[in-house]
């Protein structure tokens, strides 16, 4: 046992050296047209060996360290608490949630513009993550190209407004429906795929959309993107200093208040909030409906689901389509918020972040996903100094989470169903 451990630890340490020494230990230096390899300075090399040593020690005592971490989790999850009466808990929960939404409604009026702007972004991510949660968390289909549907929503609005002068409110349903159509179209070829294969095909799909947007310069402006996307209006009232659209009036003049840039930011935030709440409520409802149960059944056991008469085609396509629909929603809001979009905003990293939110939050759990979306969007903003290490911290956080709480922050709780006794 001990010998086995030492062998394993040594192996890990050597692998660490093999990987990190060539990467960190050598520098390429350009001298004129020649590139020469120079050894790194002593501190870096010391650092590499130190890292190997840390890996060695950790692997040697891995079992006890992991055991401690495991104990921690059992303390924190409160498994020993008495479960509350079911209906009482549901009542408290719904009051708390309503309270939070009401707070969120009034909160922006007391905050700085930057904070409200960030909160809007958080809400967009919440919409995206809730939508992806349907596909990944409920239906169990690993989709790595989710950002494509987000892009479809955003570009639909951008293009419609640029070429046809369509307003936000018209573009919102069109963008969402178009994204849903793309979800349906992607769904067909990947029906038979599961797990890794599905992940790779959806990843490819995401890239295709992005590359298409990048190269179809005549329509999308390519890498230059599309600018001048209008802000949403409130019953024909615009939030800009001067009215741009025909027949519109301006918000501050109608209400006879001084113009302030904040109005627009707050209005966008409120739209995002309402849409996010709608998204959450609709998906919550779906989860309690036959379609939601079918998604989960397919995730749990496809063979059994089919043997009970569920059509794999219908169930998978509905998950893809509904997931994509909400991404389209989010995309339209995003385009309106930024005023400018380019393919840069829809890279694979976005898909990865949204997926990370779903996994961190706890697959299938809506509250967990909302909390994770807040954490993942806000933390990098708070830790600006570390922005270089963002991905590193992100990765480390994921690994720790998987060790400590593999089921996510707030794992999904089953719905309690009261049955009437039958005679």
């Amino acid at each position: 046992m001990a010998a086995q451990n030492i062998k394993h630890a040594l192996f890990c340490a050597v692998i660490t050296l093999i990987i990190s020494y060539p990467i960190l230990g050598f520098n390429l230096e350009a001298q004129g047209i020649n590139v020469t390899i120079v050894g790194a300075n002593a501190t870096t090399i010391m650092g590499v060996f130190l890292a190997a040593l840390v890996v060695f020690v950790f692997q040697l005592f891995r079992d006890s360290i992991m055991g401690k971490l495991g104990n921690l989790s059992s303390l924190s999850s409160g498994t020993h608490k008495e479960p509350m009466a079911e209906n009482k808990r549901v009542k408290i929960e719904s009051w708390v949630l309503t309270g939070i939404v009401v707070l969120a409604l009034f909160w922006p009026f007391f905050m700085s513009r930057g904070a409200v702007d960030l909160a809007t972004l958080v809400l967009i991510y919440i919409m995206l993550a809730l939508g992806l949660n349907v596909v990944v968390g409920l239906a169990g289909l690993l989709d790595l190209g989710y950002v494509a549907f987000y892009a479809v929503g955003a570009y639909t609005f951008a293009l419609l407004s640029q070429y046809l002068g369509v307003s936000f409110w018209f573009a919102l349903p069109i963008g969402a429906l178009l994204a849903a159509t793309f979800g349906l179209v992607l769904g067909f070829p990947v029906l038979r795929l599961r797990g890794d294969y599905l992940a790779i095909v959806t990843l490819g799909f995401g890239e295709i959309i992005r590359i298409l947007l990048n190269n179809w310069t005549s329509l999308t402006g390519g890498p230059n993107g599309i600018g001048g996307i209008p802000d949403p209006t409130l019953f024909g009232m615009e939030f800009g200093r001067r009215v741009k659209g025909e027949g519109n009036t301006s918000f501050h003049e109608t209400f006879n208040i001084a113009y302030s840039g904040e109005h627009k930011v707050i209005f966008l935030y409120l739209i995002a909030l309402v849409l996010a709440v709608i998204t959450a409520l609709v998906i919550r409802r779906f989860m309690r409906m036959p379609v939601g149960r079918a998604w989960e059944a397919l995730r749990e056991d496809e063979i059994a689901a089919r043997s009970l008469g569920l059509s794999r085609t219908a169930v998978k396509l509905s998950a893809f389509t509904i997931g994509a629909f909400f991404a389209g929603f989010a995309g339209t809001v995003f385009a309106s918020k930024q005023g400018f979009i380019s393919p840069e905003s829809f890279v694979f990293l976005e898909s990865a972040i949204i997926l990370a939110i779903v996994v961190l939050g706890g697959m299938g759990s809506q509250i967990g996903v909302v909390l994770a979306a807040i954490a993942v969007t806000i933390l990098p903003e708070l830790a600006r100094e570390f922005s270089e290490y963002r991905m590193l911290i992100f990765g480390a956080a994921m690994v720790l989470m998987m060790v400590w709480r593999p089921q996510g922050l707030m794992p999904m709780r089953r719905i309690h169903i009261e049955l009437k006794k039958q005679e």
Partner: protein
Amino acid sequence: MLEVQNLSMRFGGLLAVDQVSLDVQEREIVSIIGPNGAGKTTVFNCMSGFYTPTGGKILFEGSEVQGKPDYKISRLGMVRTFQHVRLFNQMTVVENLLVAQHRHLNTNLVAGLLKTPNYREREQKSLDRAAYWLERVGLMDLANREAGNLAYGQQRRLEIARCMVTEPKLLMLDEPAAGLNPAETKDLNQLIVSLKEDYCVSVVLIEHDMSLVMDISDRINVINQGRPLASGTPEEIRQNDDVIKAYLGEA
């Protein structure tokens, strides 16, 4: 109501099922027995649409079903359980039963979002049906437990209840008594008989527990190495020399 004619299934070089025929009448319990690897489960897989047989016909209520997709066959009223229990483990016991009633539910998304009266009514009916069957198999108190956390015998019963809520005409049970203790086997015995007597379903049963098979079967089909060996009433099978030889040979 079910007629299997000269069913064959070939996996590459292996002829797992070779010219097997059987028929099931209304309200009849027909068993398929045979040594391990005889091809019993493969016959089920062909009947339930899981495999497309390489030869032969399967007629259910007069129409050919071989090669039809599995979910369509089950919608015709032919449902099965699995040799290794296949529940939706992370879903609760009730949810398992609700999923199975998908076909009886109003699956219109808009109706569900708006909770139309028709939607509510059907949802309530399926809840009642679930409650009825939970009561019937003695799992009512566990209705909101996760299916994966049930004891093995309970999982077996839940799997049968999950089939029954679909209101099938023909039930295919693949080794339902495997892993059950004697008391549970006795309950299972009564349950299967009651399914036939009280709910008018026909049952095709694969089972290794001979006393159960002999007790409840109306007719028995024996297959050995994919080929039909004998068929007849329990009494005939008990006295059939070939069967005795096959089983003794195996032991």
